[in-house]
């Protein structure tokens, strides 16, 4: 069996026809991951005991002749901001180097209920803050396509594991592009569902009004299958949506004739690059498939970066207040008084990017600045959401770049935080509006670096989004 190119369908076929058992597959997947992981550092740790337990349960179901579940035997990598009971969950932070969660995230429970195998936890930017996975306290991840380059971030480890073949699918989290951008950099599919589509219970909070859990996969159908498993109302997350979950993989296929696609002028005019050329070729593929393509305007786009970085840092400064030396493993040795304990634990525990964002978020919420920054940003967020609502009266979906550039070199951008923030422009608009968006591979640059194309659609429009992405993939992308 070719571990590195397995699909969910292939695994299901192999299990049902008894070509291999879930235990055999999991042993092989663990061996492969262990051997290959040093090339990228995608995994921080494997979870062999838990994986083998889950595999045995799948084999028992099969032996009893029961339906083994839509993810039966599928090796799943999980970003280390998603809590796993009994398995260390660090969030890429020194503060949580020894933290062992006492409960599982809802998404994890759903994956295992569906027969999925939690293979291990993947590296990421500390508390999901970053665009390159270089902000992890446990070292960077290398892009499997080009080892001197970053895999993107913050879910860089999950994207790299799927691209490298050490996982079949993976879970990541996306607050401002942290699934789509690494998917683009590593040449895999990455989906940010509608806000509230997937329960956030057990996802370490970064910016609660923007946080999502979503899937990575090597093809659209596998991403759709994983999303279907993890989506749905969860009483433990009051923001999770009650809307029924469509059978996304079953809705793939069918022509695109008559579907209307929008190209936002504001996104395209700055793109004279190779990325822009590839996206244009991607749009041509949709035209050939029968879509009607028209330009449209999202006039508030230029304000999305300041809007996002005010709201996200404000929420982060509040969410990260809990890491104070009382409950979560790490406490500074210099904790003479209670105040010293708080300040020194946080000062020693958080890395530079987290501190920068805590500072920024605390500043914009502080007395005298709240109206000028935070309230203003929330109003601009309304305008950005309205831009999309207006656009989706005209078109079924929007096509856009994911990132202005392909994977950059390790260390290339670490010293310029503002430049790193500015590169999130194409992903944060959709995040602010809470709409579903995904990155689908759209060819490579002349230098062989993958480029993702972004598809965005209206709230709960995942079926149309997957249909577009699936048809694009079936048509062979831009190649």
């Amino acid at each position, binding site marked *: 069996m070719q571990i590195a190119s397995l699909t969910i369908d292939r695994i299901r076929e192999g299990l049902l026809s008894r070509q291999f058992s879930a235990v055999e597959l999991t042993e092989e997947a663990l061996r492969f991951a262990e051997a290959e992981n040093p090339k990228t550092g995608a995994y921080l740790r494997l979870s062999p005991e838990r994986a083998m337990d889950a595999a045995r349960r799948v084999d028992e179901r099969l032996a009893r002749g029961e339906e083994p579940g839509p993810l039966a035997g599928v090796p799943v990598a999980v970003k280390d901001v998603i809590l796993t009971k009994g398995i260390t969950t660090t969030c890429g932070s020194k503060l949580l180097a020894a*933290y062992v969660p006492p409960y599982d995230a809802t998404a994890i429970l759903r994956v295992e209920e569906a027969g999925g195998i939690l293979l291990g936890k993947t590296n990421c930017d500390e508390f999901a803050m970053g665009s390159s996975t270089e902000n992890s306290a446990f070292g960077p991840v290398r892009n499997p396509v080009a080892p001197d380059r970053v895999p993107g971030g913050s879910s860089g480890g999950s994207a790299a594991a799927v691209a490298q073949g050490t996982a079949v699918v993976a879970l990541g989290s996306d607050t401002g592009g942290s699934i789509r951008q690494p998917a683009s950099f590593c040449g895999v599919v990455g989906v940010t569902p509608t806000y509230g589509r997937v329960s956030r219970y057990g996802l370490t909070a970064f910016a609660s009004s923007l946080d999502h859990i979503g899937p990575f996969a090597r093809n659209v159908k596998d991403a759709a299958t994983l999303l279907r498993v993890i989506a749905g109302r969860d009483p433990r997350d009051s923001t999770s949506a009650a809307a029924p979950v469509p059978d996304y993989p079953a809705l793939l296929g069918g022509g695109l004739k008559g579907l209307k696609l929008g190209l936002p002028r504001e996104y395209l005019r700055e793109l004279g690059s190779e990325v822009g050329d590839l996206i244009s070729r991607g749009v041509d593929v949709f035209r050939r498939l029968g879509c009607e393509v028209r330009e449209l305007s999202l006039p508030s786009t230029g304000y999305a970066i300041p*809007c996002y970085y005010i709201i996200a840092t404000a929420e982060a400064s509040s969410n990260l207040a809990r890491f104070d030396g009382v409950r979560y493993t790490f406490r500074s040795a210099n904790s003479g008084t*209670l105040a010293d304990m708080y300040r020194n634990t946080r000062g020693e525990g958080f890395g530079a990017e987290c501190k920068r964002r805590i*500072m920024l978020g605390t*500043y914009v919420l502080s007395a005298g600045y709240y109206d000028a920054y935070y309230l203003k940003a*929330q109003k601009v967020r309304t305008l950005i959401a309205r831009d999309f609502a207006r656009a989706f009266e005209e078109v079924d979906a929007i096509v856009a770049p994911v990132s202005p550039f392909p994977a950059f070199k390790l260390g290339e951008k670490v010293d310029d935080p503002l430049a790193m923030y500015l590169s999130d422009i194409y992903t944060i608009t959709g995040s602010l509006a809470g709409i579903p968006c995904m990155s689908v591979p759209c060819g490579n640059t002349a230098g062989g670096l993958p480029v993702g194309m972004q598809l965005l659609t209206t709230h709960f429009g995942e079926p149309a989004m997957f249909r577009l992405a699936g048809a694009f993939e079936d048509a062979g992308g831009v190649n």
Partner: protein
Amino acid sequence: MRITEKEVRYVAGLANLTLDDSEVARFRADLDGILEHMDQLNEVDTSGVEPMAQVLFEGAGGLREDVVETPLGSEAGLANAPQRGPGYFKVPKVVER
């Protein structure tokens, strides 16, 4: 200049964050550049626009059934404590007798 080192120290105090002198200098410069960029928002006319605090849609939110569930339990809750006593988290003394 939008922010001074004195203000950086004040904000670090609000955030309960110990920063050394080099961090104060670095964050002052970083925040200065970022805040300058953020001032672009002043160009936008938001009069009469409602703030968006949350993504809202049909079927969002709502309350769950008020049923008793088994809680995590204090043992599990305390398992990651840096310092603990029987049934509680231990912190440095706050009030002198």
